[in-house]
Every structure is written in C-alpha cells, then in structure tokens.
C-alpha cells in the first residue's frame, strides 16, 4: 500500500531540495576555499588561482600560525573564557530560572518583569565601560566573562523548560526530605539535560564569538580574545587602504608588512576548529533541545 505522492508535492520537494543544496553550498564553498588557500603557496593565493583545491601544497602556514605567540595566547584566552564563562553562566541561569519557574515563589511576576525590562533596556556602551572600569575589571578575564554571563533570553527558555517538568516528581522528592537545592541539582537538572546542553552551547558559542568584549575592555595584548585577534588580522589590509586615501598613513616605513593571505586563511581555519569540536558531543541533545519551551510560549 504505497501512498502516491502528488506531482505538485514532488515538484515542490525537488525545488526545495535544490534551494537547500544551493544554500548549503554557498556556506560550505567559502569554507573549502579558505581551507584550500591555507594549504596553498602564497604566490598562488595572491594570484587568485586557488579554487577548491590547494595549489602549490604546503603546510608552512600552519607551522607559522601555531608558533605565533599572539595566536597561541589569544586561543588560550578564548578557550579559558569560554569554559569558565559557560560554567558561570549556566550556574547563574539555572539558579534564576528554577525559582522563577515555580508558581509558589512570591513576587515571581515582578521578578520576571524586572528581568524582561533589562532585556529590552540597558545602560549602553559607555556607562557599561565606566562600570567595568570602576570595578577594576579592565584588562582582566572577568571583563570578558561577567558582562555576557547572564542572558535573560536564555534564562526564559530554561524557565519554560523547567515549567514543563512534571511537578509530581518534585513533590515526591520533597516528601523524601529533599530541600530546594537538592531538588534543583539532583532532580530538575538531570531531567533537563537537553535544555542544559542547548543553552550551554548557546553560551559557549556566545563566549567564543565575543568580539566586542575585547575591543571594549582589553588593551593588554595578553588578554586579547581570539575573535579580536582574528578580526584585526583579516581587516588589516583594508584598513591600510583607507588610511592611504585619507593620507593618515605614511608609506615611508615597511609598515606595509601585511600578513600574507595564506597565513590569514590558516589562522581562520585553526581558530574555528575548537568550537566545531564541541558540536558532535552535544549533537544528540541539540535537536531535542532546540524545541525547548516551545509548547508553553
């Protein structure tokens, strides 16, 4: 008993498939191109001959990048900030989301209102900078960790997920003599692994991609995060060009020692690997977690 798929549906699926394939390729091809460039000789990259396959194969670029002190340092910074930041962010978020998900909390609505308010309105860039400055957090890892360590949006997602958990489990634990903390850590959290993994990933990617933190709060190159290092490396040539037009830059020196394109490509490849490694481990939770809180809006 095969169900016949109507012709219209078939056409739709084919077109749909083509569109998605094209969309997928537009995202994948630049990445492959970059990978090929990173393994190609500088002169062939400069000449624009590299497509999807390396020309003049070499691995010197990777050796160079991996021995570049500022790259190693920035990579370390970003890994440290991502790990510590995600842990801190998850603790804060769980601690807030759980009580707010329980109906018996007094003043719950007011708390939620306050949180939503700061989600929509905040002090802005300069006051935040002044705050970080007066807390003496400039040029510390804290400046990269604490400002993005709590996201109201993620908290609300988690709160909604918690609300969906059957209350009876919690009640029986309470009868067995468990306190609030025990219930949170031993009952609620283990039951919410998909949501935790998803939101943890949101945070981790957020910390990893945090670029403004470095620009705003770091002047000591020791603490520069990877994204800032990367951004500055990639836009270097363009900036020099603009400075030349306005006459701000003087060609006199060998200041035009720009970083070769192949090395740039290798740096981008290497810096995207760590965060990509995280995906496979969280994949199984991720699909489940994506619909977190979707039943209750």
């Amino acid at each position, binding site marked *: 008993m095969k169900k016949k798929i109507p012709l219209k549906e078939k056409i739709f699926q084919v077109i749909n498939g083509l569109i998605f394939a094209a969309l997928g390729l537009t995202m994948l091809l630049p990445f492959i191109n970059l990978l090929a460039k990173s393994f190609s000789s*500088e*002169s062939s990259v*400069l*000449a*624009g*001959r590299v497509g999807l396959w390396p020309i003049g194969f070499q691995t010197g670029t990777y050796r160079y990048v991996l021995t*570049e*002190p*500022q790259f190693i340092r920035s990579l370390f910074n970003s890994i440290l900030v991502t790990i*510590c930041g995600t*842990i*801190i962010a998850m*603790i804060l978020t769980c601690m807030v989301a759980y009580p707010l998900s329980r109906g018996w909390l007094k003043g719950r609505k007011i708390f939620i209102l306050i949180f939503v308010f700061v989600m929509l309105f905040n002090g802005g860039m*300069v006051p935040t*900078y*002044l705050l970080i*400055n007066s807390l*003496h*957090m*400039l*040029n*510390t*890892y*804290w400046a990269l960790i604490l400002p993005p360590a709590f996201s109201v949006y993620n908290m609300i997602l988690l709160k909604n997920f918690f609300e969906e958990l059957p209350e009876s489990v919690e009640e029986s634990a309470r009868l067995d003599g468990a306190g609030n*903390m*025990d219930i*949170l*850590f*031993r009952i609620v959290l283990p039951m919410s692994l998909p949501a935790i993994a998803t939101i943890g990933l949101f945070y981790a990617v957020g910390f990893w991609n945090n670029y403004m933190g*470095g*620009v705003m709060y770091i*002047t*000591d*190159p*020791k*603490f520069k995060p990877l994204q*800032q*290092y990367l*951004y*500055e490396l990639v*836009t270097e*040539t*363009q*900036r020099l*060009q603009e400075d*030349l*037009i*306005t*006459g*701000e*830059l*003087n*060609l*006199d*020196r*060998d200041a*035009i*020692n720009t*970083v070769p*394109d192949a090395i740039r490509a290798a740096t981008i490849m290497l810096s995207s690997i760590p965060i990509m490694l995280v995906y496979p481990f969280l994949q199984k939770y991720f699909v489940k977690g994506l619909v977190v809180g979707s039943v209750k809006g």
Partner: protein
Amino acid sequence: MCNWKRFAAVIIAGMLLLTGCGAKSSGGNATGATEGNEDEQMAASAEAETGQSATASAEDPAEEGEKPTLKWLSNYVSYDPNSEYVAGLLEDLTGYKVEYYMLPAENADQRLSMELSSGNSYDLLKLNYSQYSMLAGEGALLPLNDLLEANPGIYETTNPLGWYGVTQENGDILGIPEVATIQTAAALGFRKDIFDEYGWELPETVDEFYQLLKEIKEKTGKIPLTGNQAVQVTIASGFGFDTYDFEINDGKVQSYLRNPGVKEYLKFMNQLYVEGLIDPDWPVNKGENIDQKMSTGEAIMTHMSWSSTPNWTRALQETVPDASFESIMPLSDANGVKHIDPNTGSAYQSVVCIPKKAKENAPYVVDMVEKRLEKDTFWKFNAGTEGVHYTLEDGIPIPIQPKYAEDMTNGNYFQTSVNYIESPITWLSRVRKDDLLYEAWRDMNSKVSKYDYTYDPFYYASFPEYDEYHAALAQKVNDYFLQVIAGTESIDTYDNFLASWEAAGGLEYEAGAQNWYDNNQELAQKALEAVPAYKSLFVEQ
C-alpha cells in the same frame, strides 16, 4: 546529598584562581609600578609644587634609585610587543621596564578618549597625529617644556622641523614628534620584461603615455594600467598638479581643485576608461584585486609602492622567470615640469605624549625617550647588534638572515621619535632585508634624484581646520573623481562639485591653510628646501 556542595566548592575554587590570574597580570604591575617608587614620586611632585621646575626632579630619579615600570598605550599591531626581542633589549639598555598596551584596530579614537576620560593611567601614549591633535584639543596632555629642557638629548637627535607641529600657541610642547624620512615610497610601476620585449620607451608626456597605453592594449591584449586612485599621480603630473592639497600663487593659498589642470585630468582619465585603456574595474578595485592582476600578469602597469613589488615579482616568476618591475617618473606638464611627491602621507609618523594624569612618571618617560634616541641604543634596536644582526658595508648595515628577521622585524614599533641623524642609515637595514625590495626602492629613489622638484610647503603644517575637514573632504573628492572617471558623473558637473566641496568645509579648510601659511612663512620655506634623505647616496654614484 552533598554532591552539589562539592560542585559549588570546585566552582568557587576555580573562580578564585581566575581572580588571582587577573590581578597578577594586570592590576599587580600597575600598582607595583607606582607603589614601589612612591617616595621618589612624592619627592618629585613636592619639588614641582614648591615652585621648582621639574628639571631637578627629572634628573635625579632617572639617574639613581629604582625606576618605575612604565605603561605604554599605542595603536594596534598584530603581535604582542611585550614578547618581542626588542622589548627585552630596550629594558636592558635603558633600565626601564615597559608594559605595552594597545588600542583595538576598530574605533581606536573613541576607545582612546574613553580610556583617558575614565581615569585609566598610562604613562606614555604613542599616537598618530590626528589622535594627538584630538587629545591636545581636549587639554588632556601634559606640557613637556621643562622636561625637554632637562633632557637636551631629545632636541639634539630629533628633526627640528617636527617640533612646530606639537607646539601650542601659548608655547606649550605637548608631544615628542617622530618625523618621516623624506624619500620616495611609490611610483608608477611597469613590467620591465614586457617593455623590453616590445622595445617600448618610457613616456615623458601625456601624449606619449596615451600612445603607449594604446600600444600595450593592441600588442598584448592585457590591461595596460590598473589601479583605483582618484588622482593617479603619474598622470596628474602631466596636467600640472601634484598630490599636495594646496597650491600657492603669489602668497594666496588655494586648493589644488581650483587648478584648471584637474578638469583636464579627469576628462583624460574618463577617455582612457571609455576606450578601455585602463582597468574597467578602476572605480571598484581593492588592493587585493590590484595585487591579483599584477601578480598574474593580467595588467602591465600600476601605481606601486616598493614594498608591494617583491610579492608580485615572486608570483610572476613562477611562470615568467625573467619578470621584473621598474618605475616610471611622473609625466612632464606643458612647462616640462615633473610634479614629484616624495612624501606619501603625513610628515608625522607618530607623536609620543604624556597624559596630564601621569605627571608623576613623566620625568622617567622623557628620560627613557632620551635614552632610546642615544646613538648606540638607537642602532641596537633599529639595526641590531653588529656581527649578530648585521654587517657593515660602506657604513650601511646589511642584515644577517635569518637572525635579523627573527629579532628585528617589529623593531620599528618601539620608536619614540627617531634619531634623525642615524635613522636614515639604520633604516637601510630594513630595506636591504630582501633583494627585490631593495631593488625596487633603489630604482625609485635613484630615478627621482635626477630631478629638481618642489616640496609641499604644508608638509609640517598643522592647523585645526586640517583635523576637522581634511579626512572627510579627501573622501568626498575621492568618491566624486572616481565617478567622473567611470562616467557616472559628467565632467560638466565639476563646478557644482566644487561648490558642494566648499560648502562641506572646503572654504574653511582653505582659509585655515592660508592663515597657517601667513603665520609660518619660515617653516613653509624650510619644508620647500628639504632634501631627500638618500639623494646623496644616488647622486654620487
């Protein structure tokens, strides 16, 4: 049951550890720097307050006692200066430990303002000239007159013309200027091998140049000339104007835009564009497109700096083994004059200044600057150590590779002004580090040295209208010129453009320049008489 407690304990321990890290590497040094020398500093400031000039206090702390760690803030570089060989070397040579901090590449100016206005302490700022002007205007910088008197070595070793740009109307000197060495950095480059193959002569006039472009296109089918400049200096010279912003006629300062040659130039460029004699991508080309066209041999000529040639040549030589570049001098105008600009960009490479709030350490900063300018020290961090990083040939340092590249590549970052007697010589080690680089540089500078040409009298100029209008106006001109070249704007709209340029601050800009010129005749004259640093090197040969 106590599982979560254990978990919490681990987290708290982790946080404490992190706090330790942060404090050790940032706050710790800063406070260490000030605390360690509290006595000296108090003595210094007490002396300054009791009417003594800072002179006495400047000499004493520098000569004896422990020196503070100085915090240095500068613009973005892609490496960490703290881990450079030269940083350690300078610490040994001058006795000052310096911590290097840097502004982000993006929004650097805003960040600089924020850093200073929120009271962050840096002892030394190394800024570009427009950043310096901004802070000087805000009154954020410490006058250095007394300290400079106390360290006369700085006056003796730096270019005297540079000081005009950092002296305020009331006589306050707010920075130590680093002035560029006058030399030629860029010219129109052509493929020597192809020119030789077809036996083409180097063009002298606009007509010859036009014929040459046509011939290149016919014979090779390639792009005769690529680029993206609004004012192609080599061609513009043939129409009687140069890259200087202002022209002076009988004491009257006016923008080069009023030169009738500009309109003719734009017409000519548009003609070349329409006839396909220059790159059809001219208005949209980026640096990388030009690099690509030159290193694949797709284009024959372009405006090139000597620093870009080695990459192109190496890429070309993979397929064309005898490929090479040489340069063409700007075309002669109707009067037979070549308009050569040896100074591409600003005279001021950087300005070293001290924020008002860093008064305590100021004597140490100026002392350190003086020490870095001393001949021996200057040689050591610019060229390296003789026998290790370079060997001397006829007094010129020739790099020893790979040691030179390993240690000295980023040495330039550490300049606090330059020793203008030594730097033209030590700098040669930089250009000699690569044979192709040196060849391109030598070719340009030796060709230029055969001509007499006028310098920009405004080379050392600084006036408020420049800071306010220059960059925006330059961008406006750039956009309009490219539109005319590409034919999206007709040349008939030139008068309208000029009117809108005037309205956008052009008139104020001109008036400011006139005012500066009237009041700085002597400096303008000195700028006109400047001699390229390497002229003697080529003329004698």
